[in-house]
C-alpha cells in the first residue's frame, strides 16, 4: 500500500522533506565512462616532449628495478618483493607529479614510486630485505614509510595535508592504495575526512585487477572505483593506468586543484599486475594466461615507446642509451644488495622510546651478554 492510498490521504502530494537540498552537485564529480587516454590520441601532441622522454627513461629504469629486485628474492637477498611490473606508469607518474615539498604515502608495492622520487634504491628495499622496517628518514624525503597494513596510510595523508594547510603551506599529499585496499574502513574514513576538510590530498587507486587472488568483482559492486568519490563529495577520475602521459596529466590536474584549495580527488588508474602478488604467490591458481597476455599487448613501456618513435622523438640509439642507464642502476643495486647489511642488535632497543626505559636497558644488557657469549664461543671454535 503506498502513501497515496492511505484513507484520507488522497490530497497528499509527495514533496521532499522540508530541510532537504543537495549538498553538492554530483554531476561534475562523476568520472568519465572510459579511462582517460593520451598516448596515441590527439591529446598527445600537447604534451611536452621532454616530459614524455623523462617518463620513458623512468619507466625503463623502473621495469629494470622490478626485474632486478625479483631476481634478488631468488638469490635470497630479499625476503620478499611485490613487483609492480606492468604498473610502472602509475608509480612513475605519482612520483614525478609532486613538487619537492609535497608528500608521498606509498603502500608496500610502491617501492618504485619512492625510488623515482629520489630515494636510494637500496634504502627503499630495507623493509623487504628485512634489516630495517624503514631504512630512510621520511621527513628528509617526504615519503612516508612503505605501508603494509592496507589503507592505513590514507588517513595519515589526509592529516598531514590538513596540517600543512593549517600552517599555510601549499603542500599536497599523494596517497597510493590498491583496489583491494578500497574496501577497508580506513579508505572510507580517509576520503570522508579529506572531502569534509577540503584537504589537499590526491588518492591514487592502482586498480591492478586483483587483491592477491580476489578479483575486482568480488571487491566492489560500484560502477568503478572512481565512482566512489561522488559519495564523499569529491571528483572521481578514471585513467588508463598504463598510459604514463595520461596518468601524469590526470594526477597533475588533481595536484594543482588540491594546491589551490580545491580539495581532494580520487583517481582510479586501470592497470594490471603482470607478476604474481609477491614472489611467494602462485598466480596460476586464480588467473589465466590469456588475460595476462592481453595486458602484455597494452604494456606501458611499449605504449610510450610507440608514441615516441612514431613521432621521431626516440630512435634505436635513444632506446639503447636509456636501457644502458637502467642496466647501470641494476648493476649498482645488485652489487650493493650482495653485501650483507651490518646490523647492530642493540638497535632493537634504541628506538622504542625517546629515552630507554629501565626495563629495556636491562633487556639490552642481557642480550649483550648473550651475544658476547656467542662470539666468545665462535671465537674459541676458530681458535681450535
Amino acid at each position: 500500500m503506498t502513501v497515496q492510498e492511505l484513507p484520507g490521504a488522497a490530497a497528499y502530494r509527495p514533496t521532499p522533506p522540508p530541510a532537504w537540498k543537495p549538498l553538492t552537485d554530483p554531476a561534475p564529480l562523476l568520472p568519465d565512462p572510459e579511462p582517460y587516454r593520451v598516448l596515441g590520441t590527439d591529446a598527445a601532441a600537447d604534451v611536452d616532449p621532454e616530459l614524455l622522454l623523462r617518463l620513458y627513461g623512468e619507466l625503463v629504469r623502473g621495469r629494470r628495478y622490478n626485474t632486478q629486485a625479483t631476481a634478488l628474492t631468488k638469490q635470497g637477498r630479499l625476503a620478499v618483493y611485490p613487483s609492480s611490473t606492468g604498473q610502472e606508469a602509475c608509480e612513475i607518474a605519482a612520483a614525478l607529479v609532486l613538487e619537492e615539498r609535497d608528500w608521498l604515502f606509498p603502500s608496500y608495492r610502491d617501492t618504485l614510486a619512492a625510488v623515482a622520487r629520489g630515494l636510494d634504491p637500496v634504502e627503499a628495499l630495507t623493509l623487504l630485505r628485512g634489516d630495517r622496517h624503514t631504512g630512510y628518514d621520511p621527513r628528509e624525503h617526504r615519503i612516508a614509510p612503505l605501508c603494509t597494513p592496507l589503507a592505513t596510510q590514507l588517513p595519515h595523508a589526509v592529516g598531514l595535508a590538513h596540517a600543512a594547510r593549517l600552517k599555510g603551506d601549499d603542500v599536497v599529499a599523494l596517497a597510493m592504495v590498491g583496489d583491494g585496499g578500497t574496501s577497508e574502513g580506513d579508505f572510507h574514513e580517509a576520503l570522508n575526512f579529506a572531502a569534509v576538510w577540503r584537504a589537499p590530498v590526491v588518492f591514487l587507486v592502482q586498480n591492478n585487477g586483483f587483491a592477491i587472488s580476489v578479483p575486482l568483482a568480488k571487491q566492489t559492486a560500484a560502477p568503478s572505483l572512481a565512482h566512489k568519490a561522488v559519495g564523499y563529495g569529491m571528483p572521481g577520475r578514471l585513467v588508463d593506468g598504463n598510459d604514463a602521459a595520461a596518468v601524469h596529466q590526470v594526477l597533475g590536474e588533481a595536484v594543482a586543484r588540491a594546491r589551490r584549495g580545491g580539495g581532494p580527488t580520487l583517481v582510479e588508474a586501470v592497470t594490471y599486475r603482470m607478476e604474481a602478488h609477491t614472489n611467494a604467490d602462485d598466480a596460476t591458481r586464480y588467473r589465466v594466461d590469456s588475460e595476462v597476455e592481453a595486458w602484455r599487448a597494452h604494456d606501458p613501456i611499449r605504449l610510450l615507446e610507440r608514441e615516441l618513435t612514431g613521432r621521431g622523438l626516440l630512435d634505436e640509439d635513444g632506446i639503447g642509451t636509456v636501457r644502458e642507464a637502467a642496466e647501470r642502476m641494476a648493476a649498482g643495486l645488485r652489487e650493493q644488495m650482495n653485501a650483507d647489511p651490518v646490523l647492530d642488535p642493540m638497535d632493537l632497543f634504541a628506538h622504542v622510546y625517546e629515552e630507554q626505559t629501565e626495563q629495556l636497558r636491562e633487556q639490552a644488557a642481557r642480550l649483550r651478554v648473550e651475544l658476547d657469549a656467542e662470539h666468545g664461543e665462535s671465537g674459541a671454535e676458530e681458535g681450535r
Partner: protein
Amino acid sequence: MTTVATMAGERAGTAKPATMAQALGRALRDSMAEDPTVHVLGEDVGTLGGVFRVTDGLAKEFGDDRCTDTPLAEAGILGAAVGMAMYGLRPVVEMQFDAFAYPAFEQLISHVAKMRNRTRGAMPLPITVRVPYGGGIGGVEHHSDSSEAYYMATPGLHVVMPATVEDAYGLLRESIASDDPVVFLEPKRLYWSKAAWSPDAPAAVEPIGRAVVRRSGRSATLITYGPSLPVCMEAAEAATAEGWDLEVVDLRSLVPFDDETVAASVRRTGRAVVVHESSGFGGPGGEIAARVTERCFHHLEAPVLRVAGFDIPYPPPMQERHHLPGVDRVLDAVARLQWEADN
C-alpha cells in the same frame, strides 16, 4: 591399482605424516561437512585456499557461499560474521595475519566478546576467529605479532592455541562447535611441522580449557603454549645434561586457563618458568606467574620466572632471532632457579 589392503588401511585411518596446516584444513572440512551452518569467510580463502593454504579445496567442495572470498575489510568480515551468527550460522573467520586483525578489534571487543552478556544469554555468538600468529618465519613488518595478551584481556572470548598436529585438528573442531566466540591462534611457524596423524580416525584430544603435561619431570615446570612448546621440549631435553628433570606443561588455551593442571605440576616441582614469545611486560606470563604464586606460594622454592620476547615492536626478520626466546634463554632461566634449589 590400489590394493584392497591399502584401501582398508585408509578406511581404518592409517596414520601418515600430516602438517599442522593440513590438520587445520581437515578440521574445517569435517566441521563443514557435518554441520551445514558452518561457513568460512575471509580474504583469499576461496580460490587461493588462503595464503597458508589452510582453506584449500573448501570452496570447491562446499561452494562460494560456504567458503567465501570477502572484500578486503577485516572489520567488515568480523562484523558480518556477527550478523551471520545472530541468524543461526557458525562463521569461521580467517584473519590473514595477526597484525591485520587489528582493524577488526572494535567488532571483536565491543560486539563479539559481549553479545552473550549484553543479551543476558539470549544471543550467544558461535564465531571462530582464526589468526595465523607469531614470528619466526622471516616475515616483514606486521606479519609476526603475538597478540594473545590483547585477546585474553577481553572477557567473553576464548583464546586457544594449538601446538601439535593432533591439537590443531581437535581444538579447531571444538572451537567451531563452541557456542562461545573463540580466538584461535595458529602458530605460523608450526604450520609445516609434521606428525603421524590420521584424518580418518583422528586421535582424541583433551578438550579446550585443559592443559596437558607434554613431558613429566621433577625439578621444575616449564609453562608454555603454541610456538614456544617445541622450544621448551628441546630445552627440557638439553637440561638433562645439567641434571634438571623438567616438566613441560602445554596450556593449549589461555582462556579458559587450567589452574588445576598448572598448580598441580608446580606443587610437584616447586619451581616454574613461563615461556612465551610475546613481549613480557603486560604479557600472559605476568598473569600466569601471579596465578601460580597465589595457588602454590607455600610450595615454591624460587620465584616464578618469565622468559618472553623483549618489550619492543616486533623486529625486522634479520633481527628476529634476538627477540624470540630460544632454548638458551629458557635454560638460562632454569639456571636462575638454581640458587634456591641449592639451599
